[in-house]
């Protein structure tokens, strides 16, 4: 039941979604540590792309654009959730037990990955999971290649030592 029939001068939106959706959602899940939030943010990003699909040719790199929009949306959601949670707690006097920091899994590597600074986690996810080059990661994150290299280096160090300790 595929209702996306935006066949246009720029090819099928449908096949673009097929190709990138699962990887985008999985990447956002790792970065945000919250699969539901990741799903919503990815939906929003694709919807936004859909609305401008006939001018997608104007974008330098539609995939980088998609990831950037989705990451921003993740942060927006996250801010609202955190702010709302604080409010609820304060006003209702229920400061414990309602909300816990989302986490990936209980393995050693997952814990290490979760504990990485967000930008390192983002760089590592985009590079290793979304298969992006340093250049592409830099474009998505809006930073220089050197900065991406530094994030990747630190993330690798932390993850390797966690994996080596396990093996």
């Amino acid at each position, binding site marked *: *039941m*595929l*209702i*996306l029939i*935006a066949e246009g001068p720029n090819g099928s939106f449908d096949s673009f*979604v*097929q190709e990138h*959706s*699962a990887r985008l*959602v*999985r*990447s956002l*899940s*790792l970065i945000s540590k919250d*699969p*539901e*939030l990741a*799903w*919503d943010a*990815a*939906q929003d990003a*694709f*919807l936004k792309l*859909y*609305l401008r699909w006939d001018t997608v040719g104007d974008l330098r790199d539609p995939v980088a654009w998609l990831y950037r929009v989705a990451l921003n949306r993740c942060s*927006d*959601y996250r801010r*609202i*959730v955190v*702010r*709302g*949670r604080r*409010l*609820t*707690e*304060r*006003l*209702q*006097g229920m*400061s414990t037990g309602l909300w816990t920091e989302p986490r*990936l*899994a209980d*393995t050693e*590597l*997952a814990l290490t*990955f979760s504990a990485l600074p967000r930008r390192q986690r983002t760089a*590592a*996810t985009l590079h*290793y*999971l979304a298969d992006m080059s340093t250049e592409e990661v830099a474009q998505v994150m809006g930073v220089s290649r050197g900065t991406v290299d530094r994030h990747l280096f630190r993330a*690798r160090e932390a*993850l*390797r030592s966690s*994996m*080596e*300790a396990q*093996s």
Partner: protein
Amino acid sequence: MNRPVSDTELSDAIRRLAPPVDGGAFHRELGERCAAKRRRYQRGPRIRAWAIGAAVVALLVAGGFGVNALMERVGQDEGMVLTDDSMSPGATGTGSPDPTSREATTLTGAKAELWAEIQRTREGVKSGELIFAWTASEAAREDLPSDPMLMLDSLEKSLLGPDITVYLRDSAGDATALRSEISAMPGVARLEFVSKDEALQKLKESFADHPEIISSLPGNPLPASLEVWLTDYTQAPALADQLRDRPEVDEVRPPTMDYGQWAERLRSLTREGSGDSGRVIVSNSYPSPTVASGVTGGATQHLG
């Protein structure tokens, strides 16, 4: 010395960390949203909730209540709309109940108990026998709103508000059949119909300090609603369930407050005074009355 981990192993390990995704379900949901968007565009632009979401949150902070409803909705589609809500504090700032609301004497059970506790607190503060105040640092430590009197006003307002709010689909029009049906139900004490126009008018009044938010709305995104007062508020969830599946109904919102818990909390916050009410902070002006959120679309529940 452990064996060094290769880049490929690292990459595989990271891939395994990422939870799997149901691509088909994702595609279907996106398809529906795209189709809805197309329809919406044909009708003309609709409210962009995220653009005003931050403003709503800020106003909620200022006023205090309706937060649960917001939390239930923040994760949803841009269908989030602003509605006036009974959980909002009064706009008068005097703490006296709105004369058009239901009389406080008709409250029952835990609602009556909380009402009595609020009045006891007010009177105690007035005579100086009770201290109901806290410093900013106490407020932060104990998770309290900054203004004690505002808290009492908000609680009163929510006690006098409807027991159930039923949001109607635009296609339902005035929903006359549903209205007479609900009015005739046993246990229904009062029913008020709030039309789309009245809802927008209320919103305008709520946002009197921020007219730019209202003027940025291209049309009227607010749904009409039915506000229902019951003789026994504990029947609200049952009635809500009954109404939820009606074709005219978009969303039903029963109250989410635990009145008994609030009464208990109020009791624990008051202290014996020495007849000196000097410490009490009384606020006669609000930053702004608040709004709470509703939703026009039947999107699924997301962020919890």
